[in-house]
């Protein structure tokens, strides 16, 4: 499940979270690809068209920011959260 920041929910039909179906082994890129497939306007707000994570967007696997992780793997059942960074705006 991917939990969405309030600013993203209007672009996901109002949903606070989205379930994505990704075959194992699950990676964060695969999760974000699946999310973008379901909700393109959410996808492009998280990553630009070149695939880069937007600089003021944070994606967490459980409590961990993916920028701090060496491994892009997502443990089974882990919750993913997308939040705006405090640095933007």
């Amino acid at each position, binding site marked *: 499940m991917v939990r969405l920041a309030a*600013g*993203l929910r209007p672009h996901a039909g109002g949903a606070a979270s989205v379930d994505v179906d990704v075959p194992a082994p699950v990676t964060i890129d695969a999760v974000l690809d699946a999310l973008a497939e379901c909700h*393109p*306007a959410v996808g*492009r*707000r998280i990553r*630009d*068209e*070149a695939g*880069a994570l*937007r600089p*003021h*967007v944070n994606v967490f696997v459980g409590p961990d920011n993916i920028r701090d992780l060496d491994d892009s793997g997502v443990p089974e059942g882990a919750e993913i959260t997308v939040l*705006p*960074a405090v640095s*933007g*705006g």
Partner: protein
Amino acid sequence: MTEPGGIEASAGDVVVLVGTSKGLFTLAAGPARQGWELTGPWFPGEEIYSAVLDCRGGRNRLLVGATSSHWGPSVYRSDDLGASWVEPEPQTLAFPADTGVAVARVWQLQPAGDAQPDVVYAGVEPAALFRSDDGGESFRLNEGLWHHEHRSRWNPGGGGLCLHTVLPDPSGGPRLGIAVSAAGFYRTLDGDSWQAANVGIKAPFLPEPTPEFGQCVHKVDRHPSEPDTLFLQHHWGVYRSDDFGGRWEEVGADALPSTFGFPVVVDPNRPGTAYVVPLTSDMFRCTPDGRLRVYRTTDGGASWEALTDGLPQAGSFLSVLRDGFTADTLEPTGLYLGTRTGDVFASGDAGATWQELARHLPPVLCVKAAVLR
């Protein structure tokens, strides 16, 4: 926060779009241009570098280039004066995957002439030109400019490597002019093959005084009835070309308090009349002597006069960005000017007198005016 409904205006009314660093505001008034109503913000918190009210083709279409510092850029449109907005899906104002590049900001949304009512151009950062043939619903990259041999050597100005000016052929032909900071003016005669057109423009910030390209062109404008005559505000210097950029001549060097500035506006009713807003220098980008003065030439740049009636003339160290100044098409010409400190000033008599329409808005990034059809 709740965004406003649509703009309260009808056919013949004047609508001024004020794009700021924190959202889009509008000012609307009847043809007499009195009793202005401020509405907004739409897209609160987002940078509005480009906006236009396109009144061609039997509709009044708002197009807005908004950038969220968190969620990135997007182009929105509204056919009901802002009561509802549509974000294209898919968003085609984006670079093709093989470029490996992403749009950072949309700096310009420029409708073509009346002969091409569905054509809209977009200038973006990093510098590239896109074209829409469906009124801004979808766009495609101009590959010729993107693959220009100079592009890898273009350097950004202070605002980024932006394509900020598009001059379509008013007759609907393929000829186009564009300007990039800090690459200069480029033109194409066939719509796809491009040539630098900066002969005569001095670049005091480069070792070579008049390079082929690399000029920091801040803005270019022209009158649709005389599309070969261009007025250009450079990083230093105001220039005119009478052959669509084939050669440029500096104008105003002895008459303006400074030749540094950002916007230049050609009067939509008088081809030889143009307006600039001098700033002190590139090291002090504020109005000289604490006075906001618009300078007007009515003879193609040979002479200039200061327009000050109604503009602050003491203790006013203001700055106006390249798209912070515009004109309407009514007679006498209406002029609209927004500052980085959130003031909007307007003139309903071609600059003879001015009034303040708004103050304390967020920093103004762009101002565009239209008369509703």
